[in-house]
């Protein structure tokens, strides 16, 4: 009955009777003080536990909320997000192929081969020489202009 009174669970009239009795009865008043003290201790302990667990609870709530949001999105949104880079990468590849050969007059040369076949070579007004210094070096056609070079 005293615990119900402390918790505010009694109707007004019985609560008034209990309050009157506690005012007149020393042992019951002492029991009421003890019970109120236990209640206060429990509240402090619960608050401390919640503080300790706050990061885990926060993370759990974040996951739950993300799951709720995910379910609200149309079915194709995750697929779009997952595959978006494929058309983007294809576009970059196509643009690179289209524009690389004319990408500026100062771009460095990047030969992938010096393997050259000279099928024919002639000159009307100069002496020409074919210079081959071996693998890894480019073949050179050298023009010796008469009276100039």
């Amino acid at each position: 009955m005293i615990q119900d009174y402390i918790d505010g669970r009694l109707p007004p009239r019985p609560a008034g009777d209990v309050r009157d009795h506690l005012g007149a009865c020393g042992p019951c008043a002492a029991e009421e003080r003890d019970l109120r003290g236990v209640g206060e201790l429990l509240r402090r302990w619960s608050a401390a536990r919640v503080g300790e667990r706050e990061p885990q609870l926060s993370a759990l709530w974040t996951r739950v909320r993300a799951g709720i949001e995910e379910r609200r999105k149309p079915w194709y949104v995750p697929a779009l997000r997952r595959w978006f880079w494929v058309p983007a990468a294809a576009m970059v590849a196509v643009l690179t192929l289209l524009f690389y050969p004319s990408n500026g007059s100062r771009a460095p040369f990047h030969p992938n081969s010096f393997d050259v076949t000279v099928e024919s070579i002639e000159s009307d007004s100069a002496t020409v020489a074919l210079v081959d210094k071996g693998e890894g070096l480019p073949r050179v056609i050298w023009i010796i202009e008469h009276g100039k070079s």
Partner: protein
Amino acid sequence: MGSPDPRPGGYLPAIVCVALLLFAHIVVASPDSPVAVDVGVVLASNEGTTMDPALSSIRNQLQSMFTYSSYRMVDRLSRTLNVGETGDFGLPGNRSMRVTPAPSEGTKVRLAVQIMEEDRNILTTTLGLKRGGMVLVGGPAYQKGVLILIISAE
């Protein structure tokens, strides 16, 4: 615990990329496809010790082939030509170069090259090189050095 990706199509992006690369290679390397002719006009001399940054990737080759101390790129010309189509490239010193891609097989490119000085023919040659390959044509005097043409075809 690592476990195989159960999602079907997990390898789809990789397959799409490989297919794109293969397709691009076929398009670029087709024997009758246009040829991008790139010509670097370099003035090589013993005036100074310049190495043009645009030539840095072939610096070692140039220094192995020639004994000049300075290499300066004075012009860079490029044309994309179809087989049988002739491209004219203006060169320093009243010179010009005509390049005509010729029919070829596989990944090779054949170029008919003619270099003129005014109305004099100073070189006529036909070259076969791989796509992405390079050949040098040098010797014509210019200013205090000589011209070296870096001809590459893609």
